């Protein structure tokens, strides 16, 4: 299947951090001035080699901690970004850490077309902050977010729950604080004890799954009551502030991924870049490539699309693949079990079963479905 559509989204990964959080298994490394310089040069080379002059609508700069770069380095980064055709740019997100938020950096972002800032706050509970090895107090967090608001109205904050021994009371305190921030977008994540993280190695005991599940539904309820629309498993937005960039992913659309460990989807190829800084600096960018067959693409369309609360539009699916959903996947069986719901031509996961998404999504992979 050839897709000659212009690519409208770009993800850029900046792997450097001044502090490594104990739960993080993203591609990251300690900030090192010399390495940052070399990295940015190589990033420029990668982009020049692969970017095909598409008109870009969304850019997302994530990490690691892109905000750990100093003013000079940021300038160098934005110079690279000026390579892109941004005449149609709608959304440009930059990830910030609380400790990096300062007026001149915000100003620099603003002057370089950034119009959305995503801030990793996670929690203000000292017990959990020390567990995830972050250092911030609630006054500082509040002040920094207010400072950011002076320059940006489109702000996301990351919220984390499901810490070991966390109680519903702990959760409520965090939520009330987040409510005070009154930002337009909130992403929620449970603490996952991933292999190769400090927490996993220290054999941290996970929170009981019943409690965690209750927390998830509590958060949804809490945020909905405060005017946030739940539009994706983990994401909430005030009207008009959904993340266009992330919707690229969930709509199974194509995007460029540049930088260490980044993934992308170009033409029929999904690729993942190397996590080895040495290989990357030698110009060996790609670690894995996979050609996406029509079958695989349809599966991905569902796996990603069902993350959205509105789910997958049946007509859109048919227009895209010229096949009916029901011919390919056990839709009726899942509907009968009340795991999937159909409404207004959209097929979506039963809201009460969202926390069991994987068990539902496994029905969309593998050839057995192709009967």
């Amino acid at each position, binding site marked *: 299947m050839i897709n000659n559509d212009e690519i409208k989204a770009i993800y850029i990964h900046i792997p450097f951090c001044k502090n490594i959080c104990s739960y993080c298994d993203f591609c990251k490394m300690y900030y090192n001035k010399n390495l940052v310089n070399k990295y940015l040069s190589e990033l420029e080379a990668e982009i020049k080699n692969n970017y095909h002059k598409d008109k870009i609508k969304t850019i997302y700069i994530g990490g690691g901690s892109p905000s750990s770069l100093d003013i000079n380095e940021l300038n160098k980064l934005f110079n690279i970004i000026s390579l892109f055709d941004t005449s149609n740019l709608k959304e440009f997100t930059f990830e910030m850490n609380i400790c990096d938020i300062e007026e001149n950096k915000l100003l620099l972002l603003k002057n370089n077309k950034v119009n959305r800032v995503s801030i990793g706050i996670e929690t203000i509970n000292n017990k959990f902050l020390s567990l995830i090895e972050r250092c911030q107090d609630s006054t500082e967090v509040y002040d920094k977010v207010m400072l950011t608001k002076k320059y940006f109205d489109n702000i996301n904050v990351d919220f984390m729950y499901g810490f070991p021994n966390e109680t519903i009371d702990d959760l409520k305190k965090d939520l009330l604080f987040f409510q005070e921030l009154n930002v337009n977008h909130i992403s929620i994540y449970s603490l996952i004890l991933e292999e190769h993280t400090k927490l996993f190695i220290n054999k941290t005991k996970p929170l009981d799954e019943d409690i965690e599940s209750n927390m998830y539904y509590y958060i949804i309820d809490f945020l909905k009551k405060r005017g946030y629309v739940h539009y994706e498993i983990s994401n909430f937005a005030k009207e008009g502030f959904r993340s266009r960039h992330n919707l690229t992913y969930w709509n199974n659309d194509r995007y460029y991924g540049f930088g260490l460990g980044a993934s992308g989807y170009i033409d029929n190829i999904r690729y993942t870049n190397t996590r080895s800084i040495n290989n990357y600096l030698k110009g060996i960018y790609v670690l894995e490539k996979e050609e996406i067959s029509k079958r695989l693409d349809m599966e991905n369309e569902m*796996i990603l699309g069902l993350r959205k609360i509105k789910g997958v539009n049946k007509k859109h699916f048919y227009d895209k693949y010229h096949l009916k959903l029901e011919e390919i996947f056990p839709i009726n069986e899942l509907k009968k079990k009340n795991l999937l719901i159909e409404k207004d031509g959209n097929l979506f996961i039963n809201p009460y079963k969202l926390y069991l998404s994987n068990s539902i999504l496994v029905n969309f992979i593998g050839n057995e479905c192709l009967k």
Partner: protein
Amino acid sequence: MNKQLIRNFSIIAHIDHGKSTLADRILEATNAVSKREAKTQMLDSMDIERERGITIKLNTASLRYNYNGQVYDLNLIDTPGHVDFTYEVSRSLAACEGALLVVDAAQGIEAQTLANLYLAMENNLVIIPVINKIDLPNADIPKVKKELMDLIGFDEDEIILTSAKTGEGIDQLLQAIVERIPSPLGDENKPLQGLIFDSIFDSYRGVVISVRIINGKVRVGESIKMMETNAVYEVTDITINTPKEVKKEELIVGEVGFISASIKSISDVKVGDTITLANNPSKEKLPGYKPMKSMVFCGIYPIETSRFEDLREALGKLKLNDASLVFEPETSNALGFGFRCGFLGLLHMEIIKERITREFNIDLITTAPSVVYEVVLTNKEILMVDAPNKLPDKSKILEIREPYIKTNIFTPSEYIGPIMELCQDKRGIYINMDYINPTRVNIHYELPLAEIVYDFFDKLKSYTKGYASFDYEIIGYKASDLVKMDILLNGDTIDALSVIVHKDFAYQRGKAVVEKLKEVIPRQMFEVPIQASLGNHVIARSTVKALRKDVLAKCYGGDVTRKRKLLEKQKEGKKRMKQIGSVELPQEAFMSVLSMDESK
């Protein structure tokens, strides 16, 4: 070859007493294998044998040994050590004139050794007692010598001391084999009588049979007849193992070798049958072997129902060199089409399961092992029941009898207490105790066979820190107050989970089983109630709570590839489960019906 120069012998030893190492050393000493070629456990050719360090199938090696200017042919016919394979032992013993009794210098005689030794003596074999591992720091040679003399009646100077590790004593041993073991009897001029003591399936040569020539001889090109099945084949190939394969033109009286005859039909070959020449047949068959009775049964089902025929073929091929395996098709409401298979014991069952999975690549669900019950019906008819769900309705049953065994438990005397407690828990009846020496004892109990099919070995091992050894003989059937206990999941009786239990233990068992099931059944999309019942009477219940969390909230940018890998892993896990109604069961669930109350 002059039959006076032939010696056929096997080795009897307890697991770990060094049989395979000793065999390796003998092969080396007779230059059958160079040091360079030597890998350990030369004769154990199956992967499972090498991994578990046990011998399951017999194997034969023909060695040349130069003694006093004469070259002798020594045929070593390997034997399994485990009690389950007594049948195999008796087969190899029937092809021999002598046996080496190998005993560990530190551990002394063990239960299984003794059982196999008695078998050898019944077969009138000459026994050469060997104390092995004399190099061990904790070897106690005088004590083990005394055991051999007291228990079996050997003279001290008959006993040969060896270390298979250092090679010490191997020459004396080889000399003793030549001097003490008689050459085979039999008459070269009589019509051919050859005992089939083993067979394997080779995809190029068809069925290959292992034969010991008792009378006459056989040459390549001659037509042989299987006396029981009347099948006739032309011999295409005669080989011996040295243990490299060597071709021969003929096998004469007293010799042991492998015969291929393009035998395609597995059912034409029966281990224990006699081969003779088609144009000059012997009038009489050799006595062969008593057919072995299966003691333990279980249902074996392919997880993928479409692989039923593959499973049938796999069982057929395994049966070829394992006559003791029996199977017949069976249907379960829960599991679909499969086979009820009979085994000599639990280890045998495990080995077969593992071989099907490994050699034929079929994923299996097996039901809990069951013994064969003798059910007396009200009309006095007797019914043999090898599966709980074949038990007739209670109203038609007059009496249920179950097989009992008598134990030989060899143990250091400090473990007598715990062992008696274990046997008592398993409905055992104490008989007596024989002191082998002041610190070692042989404990005899009568136990229902059903009670040892699950965790008796494991418990015995852990109660005695592995010092006790165990063997048993079947002593017959006794009436017991037995009932069928059913297990219900989500309100449906799962036939494959039914089990026959003693009425006095039913409540306790029901509770233990239900708790165990709760533990092993993973949480599902819906709540799953579990019940144990006798007839319509529920005796225990529990619930597997519904799954609450199964989600990957964090999405790595758009990295759907990584997400897919996680989902694929999850799907793989699902494949190893059996979907029964709306419930997915892992293999452990089917074994958990044998759970005992662990709190005791």
